[in-house]
């Protein structure tokens, strides 16, 4: 493969890398993307197989420690109650993500000013609003305008059907006078841009063979490839290299045969998700940066945030048909999202009405849990008389940044190229625990108000296989001593190295992050173009 220098080298072909590449399309820069995973087509998606559910526990698990494919990197999560999950392929974790598409609230960018915790972001909601909108058009987002939980905006497509489950729960929220709204989703409610609308298959984590779900391999990548962006799948970046002036000179990567190659670039852009990016930075040690590239602040790999979550379910008189329709997207209540001084915690959480999943996953404890349900006659009772009649609410909490929650390098574990794997050290903090307790009680109230005969679940335990959202491990800020990148994603210490994934989040909010990750990636691309004359000053 040629080592001709490229203008822009993006590492990672997932949500953020793809959106970022799109933002530079008008620029005539030569763009190359290296992705450790393969290019897969929808023919490979297990939702087309008769025993589709088995794949969730094998090669299509969201947990790389279960998949153990050569392109995956293992993650040591022994010191964490939550294990990170992802997917490694062209499309990244959008291949198996659930496409729930809420935005952050304006207040999420101002946690220090409003609530005296964490830090303010160096950008605000108003700055990102046009990029959210552009990305919604590029991905094909569905939703209903007029949600009083946000400043006005208009998703390009009408909302997805609530389904029986969503309607039932909505009645409960109405009885209590609590906020709810049809979920925004990066899933097509109408045919759009040559893609077919959602067929309500319900197994969005097994890949959407219809193409209705906005995985970036169906949205951004076809456009990027047509526009001449070069994509090299099965190429894993080992290290970012430096020149004699302390600028990034390119990368060392393993080609599809495992051989080490060098690729030079004017700009290096990291888009490896909130675990993969700090891992790569920590693996890029040099005389100038003995603790990892661009890590003079010591914050690379620190402040890891997930959204710790738990679930409560109610048992109703009628079947809820929760297996019909996109798994994660029905309705969302943000009644408890904003800080309320009368509560014993700051910040807040969302109550997500997730649709119910397929029987095997329910019998194995639920999506994100790994605890088989009872056997024997109790098993039959649960499966025949509880499962079909259940509807659940997930309590998705905001995680505050803490330096003790970290991604470091494991001393023994490596990937298939021998590169040190990440190790997670993480605890759920007291503020979050209080939110979970509050959330469980409120979810129970909402389910009973919706007509549930009884409720189950909870017990203050966070879900294990639920590190879906990985944020904060190379945060943004104006002060180089307290942040890794500046307000537009440029590393303070290496001025031609950019980060565009959720690592740069300053706070996590309490919503799924990907619409914000991509809005930020578009914003960073635009900022690069605006600053092109003095990019490295």
């Amino acid at each position: 493969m040629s080592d001709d220098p490229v203008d822009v080298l993006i590492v990672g072909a997932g949500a953020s890398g793809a959106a970022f590449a799109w933002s530079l399309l008008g620029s005539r820069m030569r763009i190359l993307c290296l992705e450790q995973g393969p290019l897969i087509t929808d023919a490979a998606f297990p939702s087309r197989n008769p025993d589709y559910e088995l794949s969730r526990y094998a090669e299509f698990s969201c947990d790389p420690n279960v998949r153990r494919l050569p392109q995956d990197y293992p993650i040591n999560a022994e010191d964490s109650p939550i294990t990170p999950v992802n997917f490694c392929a062209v499309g990244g974790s959008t291949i198996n993500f659930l496409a729930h598409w809420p935005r952050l609230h304006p207040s999420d960018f101002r946690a220090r000013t409003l609530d005296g915790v964490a830090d303010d972001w160096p950008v605000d909601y108003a700055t990102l609003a046009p990029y959210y909108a552009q990305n919604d058009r590029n991905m094909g987002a569905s939703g209903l305008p007029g949600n009083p939980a946000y400043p006005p905006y208009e998703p390009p497509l009408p909302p997805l059907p609530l389904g029986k489950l969503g309607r039932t729960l909505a009645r409960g929220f109405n009885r209590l006078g609590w906020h709810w709204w049809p979920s925004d989703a990066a899933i097509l409610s109408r045919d759009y841009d040559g893609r077919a609308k959602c067929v309500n298959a319900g197994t969005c984590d097994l890949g959407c063979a219809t193409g209705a779900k906005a995985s970036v391999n169906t949205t951004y990548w076809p456009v990027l490839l047509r526009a001449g962006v070069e994509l090299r799948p099965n190429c894993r970046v080992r290290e970012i290299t430096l020149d004699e002036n302390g600028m990034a000179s390119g990368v060392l990567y393993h080609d599809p045969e495992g051989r080490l190659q060098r690729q030079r670039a004017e700009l290096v852009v990291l888009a490896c998700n909130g675990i993969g990016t700090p891992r790569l930075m920590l693996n890029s040690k040099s005389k100038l940066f003995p603790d990892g590239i661009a890590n003079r602040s010591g914050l690379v790999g620190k402040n890891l945030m997930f959204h710790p979550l738990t679930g409560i379910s109610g048992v109703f008189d009628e079947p809820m048909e929760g297996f019909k329709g996109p798994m994660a997207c029905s309705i969302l209540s943000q009644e408890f999202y904003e800080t309320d001084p009368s509560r014993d915690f700051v910040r807040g959480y969302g109550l997500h009405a997730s649709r119910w999943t397929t029987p095997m996953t329910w019998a194995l404890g639920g999506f994100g849990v790994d605890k088989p349900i009872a056997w024997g006659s109790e098993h039959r009772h649960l499966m025949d008389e509880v499962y079909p009649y259940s509807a659940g609410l997930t309590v998705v909490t905001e995680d505050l940044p803490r330096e003790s929650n970290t991604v470091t390098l494991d001393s023994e574990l490596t990937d298939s190229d021998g590169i040190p794997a990440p190790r997670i050290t993480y605890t759920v903090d007291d503020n979050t625990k209080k939110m979970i307790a509050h959330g469980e009680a409120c979810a129970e109230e909402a389910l009973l108000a919706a007509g549930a005969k009884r409720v189950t679940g909870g017990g203050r335990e966070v879900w294990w296989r639920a590190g879906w959202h990985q944020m904060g491990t190379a945060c943004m800020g104006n002060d180089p001593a307290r942040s890794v990148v500046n307000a537009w994603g440029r590393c303070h210490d290496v001025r031609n190295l950019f980060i565009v994934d959720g690592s740069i989040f300053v706070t996590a909010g309490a919503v799924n992050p990907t619409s914000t990750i991509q809005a930020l990636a578009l914003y960073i691309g635009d900022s690069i173009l605006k600053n092109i004359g003095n990019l490295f000053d």
Partner: protein
Amino acid sequence: MSGPAIWSEAEARLLNALLDEIVPASADGRVPAAGALGVAEHLASSAEDDPALAALFREGLAHAARLAEERGAAFEALDAAKRIGVLEALEREAPEVFTALLRHTYMGYYSRADVRPHFGLSDRPTQPEGYELPEDDPDELADMLAPVRARSRCYRPT
């Protein structure tokens, strides 16, 4: 039913009987128990690809056979209460083995296309046909949301 090759006939008989207790038939009798449905074949194929799992299963079978003998007969010949007693003891004494047995039994059972319709799901793969889910009538949705819209804005000014 003949046992999958990886187990002896006696082991296969025991395994089928254990599976029938783990997931019994539905009350209406329309969905057979796990052993009767042939879930042992799924366990066998999982174990074939995974020697550690094969060892766990074998250990579980030996342990269950011992527990049955202590109760006076082969597992299949015990009465229902004693069979349940064996499984309860296995769960207590060998939790790792037992959890593996449960997981793989549930996986084998619920991956079957002929089991899914019992729960209202299609026997087809979910894609490409999916499911019918009627769109919400916009007026009805507006009515449902009227109380939410009537609230003042519920995000904080910055």
